[in-house]
């Protein structure tokens, strides 16, 4: 094969001395680069890759806490998908997870967009308003959950029941967290309350990157508020909406805190999302670690799509910045 002219010459033009083979193969600064990267690589391999692989191995073992594991191949998966004891509760957790995540993400997206549009206007007290509306994001989730548990309390002391009795003259008490038909919706409301500010933040950041000239031009053309939103704001926000919604889908589906502190998956599994199920199977009740690991692994394919799209988007954003 003939050497392509130009490629070798560029090298010799930059460095005057001939470069050692290692530098040519690994890059100019490879030594110092990997020294700088070593801690990061240790975290990625030791804390993520290793547990990830050992989780997959664990899912093919029968392992009770405190005992030696035995290899069972795919039996845990079969047990969850079609087995007599666990398939019912597993498929229930699929349904609950989908409703919980889908509804929470959709409403957070909608409310976050409204909030960001309002905060993007110019008015007196704008900075204070932003600080106030972002507050729920900073409060520990467990405290949010405990507070809402108190708001939902099924006795006349709970805020909502108190207000209903005192101001609306209702006679009955609503059991928001103990009624199987209400519990999931009650938990979703809490997830929305805390999760919306993150969307607002991301959308607001993206809105402020839109050049104001675009709006001025549209105003001169006589476009009204709705036209300006659908023709300028919304198209510019598509990347932010995609990234935010996908990130939030991963986080919402995998968070256990609200459900743990509000209902623990009950009543009668009405709020048993899959991480809660993994916790109940692996740590709280039966202490079947292998089975619990299989629950998590079975849900992973759902997130691969989101992770794939996000990685591509985030890398391309990084490259352009």
């Amino acid at each position, binding site marked *: 094969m003939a050497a392509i002219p130009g490629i070798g010459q560029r090298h010799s033009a930059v460095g005057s001395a001939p470069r050692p083979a290692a530098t040519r193969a690994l890059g100019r600064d490879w030594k110092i680069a990997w020294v700088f990267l070593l801690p990061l690589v240790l975290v990625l391999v030791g804390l993520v890759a290793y547990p990830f692989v050992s989780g997959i191995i664990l899912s093919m073992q029968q392992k009770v806490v405190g005992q030696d594991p035995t290899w069972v191949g795919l039996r845990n998966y079969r047990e969850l998908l079609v087995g007599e004891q666990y398939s019912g509760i597993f498929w229930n957790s699929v349904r609950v997870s989908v409703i919980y995540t889908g509804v929470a993400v959709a409403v957070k997206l909608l409310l976050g967009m409204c909030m960001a549009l309002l905060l993007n206007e110019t008015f007196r007290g704008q900075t204070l308003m932003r600080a106030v509306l972002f507050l729920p994001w900073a409060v*520990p989730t467990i405290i949010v959950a405990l507070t809402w548990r108190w708001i939902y309390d099924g006795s006349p002391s709970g805020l909502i029941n108190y207000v209903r009795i005192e101001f609306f003259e209702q006679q009955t008490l609503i059991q928001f967290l103990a009624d199987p038909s209400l519990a999931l919706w009650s938990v979703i409301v809490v997830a929305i309350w805390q999760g919306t500010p993150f969307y607002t933040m991301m959308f607001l950041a993206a809105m402020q990157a839109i050049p104001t000239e675009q709006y001025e031009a549209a105003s001169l053309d006589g476009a009204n508020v709705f036209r300006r939103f659908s023709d300028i704001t919304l198209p510019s926000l598509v990347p932010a909406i995609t990234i935010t919604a996908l990130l939030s889908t991963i986080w919402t589906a995998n968070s256990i805190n609200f459900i743990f502190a509000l209902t623990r998956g009950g009543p009668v599994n009405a709020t048993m999302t899959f991480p809660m199920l993994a916790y109940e199977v692996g740590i709280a009740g039966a202490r079947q670690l292998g089975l619990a690991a299989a629950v998590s692994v079975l849900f992973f394919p759902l997130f691969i799509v989101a992770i794939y799209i996000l990685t591509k988007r985030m890398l391309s954003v990084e490259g352009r910045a």
Partner: protein
Amino acid sequence: MATTIPLRHPVTPSPRHLRGKTIRNVVLFGGLAIFTVWTLFPFLWIISTSIKPDRDLYRRVSLLPQTITDAHYSEVLFETPFLTYFRNSAMVAILTTAVAMLIAVLAAYAMTRLSFRGRTFVARATIVTYLIPAALLFIPLFQIAQQLPFSGEALGLVIIYLIFAVPFSTWLAISYFNTIPSDLEDAALVDGATRLRSLFTIFVPLALPALAVIALFTFTHAWNEFLFALLLIQRDSQKTVPIGLAEFVVGDVFAWGPLMAGSLIASLPPVLIYIAAQKWVVSGLGGGAIKG
């Protein structure tokens, strides 16, 4: 005539214009009012509960406190290990933030300013790691952590919290370092500064807004984390605030007064840091993370 015109409003607003402005204001301030009530009522309920005597909480219930008491606060602070939990949380959160930022700054510098093979691979691995949900890892991590020597101690949590903190911080730092022009550094390197010196004397000072956002997010995350603390910490002396508070609930008996008092105190550090760093949050996110 000619002298009076400039003093008047240049354009007399048409009735249509005025109506548009009124509608805008109604929608704007009406919307803001609804969102403010929705956001703030749980906070008001926390505060109100924490200063009401038990009698007003359970028997003669009222929205606003009739009499104000500090009984719940003194109970939380002096009759429970709350202060120990608080100290543990502070230590864990500060240490997590410091270690994560150091690792992130080094790695981000290497990935934005050094030329080596494997750059893209490491960048991609960092993002994928950031996205891998903790729920997928908590069962195997629980099993692994039980065999480690520091398991059960608050300091051991720092290592676990790096799982989230490091990839996130690195990614944000990369996006920000990319916006810093390279001429600045080239000049310093010609003068004979080492890579490490140029990183800490040129990049870190320029990246302060991004570092503030990174610190805010990692501190808040470590301060608020619940699941791993619950799984790994058993001894009272090692507990962090979130699991400590959750245990104020004994069985089905909720001591709401002390619980809400403790919740209020526990929310203060992240909320105060958030208010202090607030002006950088939107610009920090916009400057790097999601600029599309």
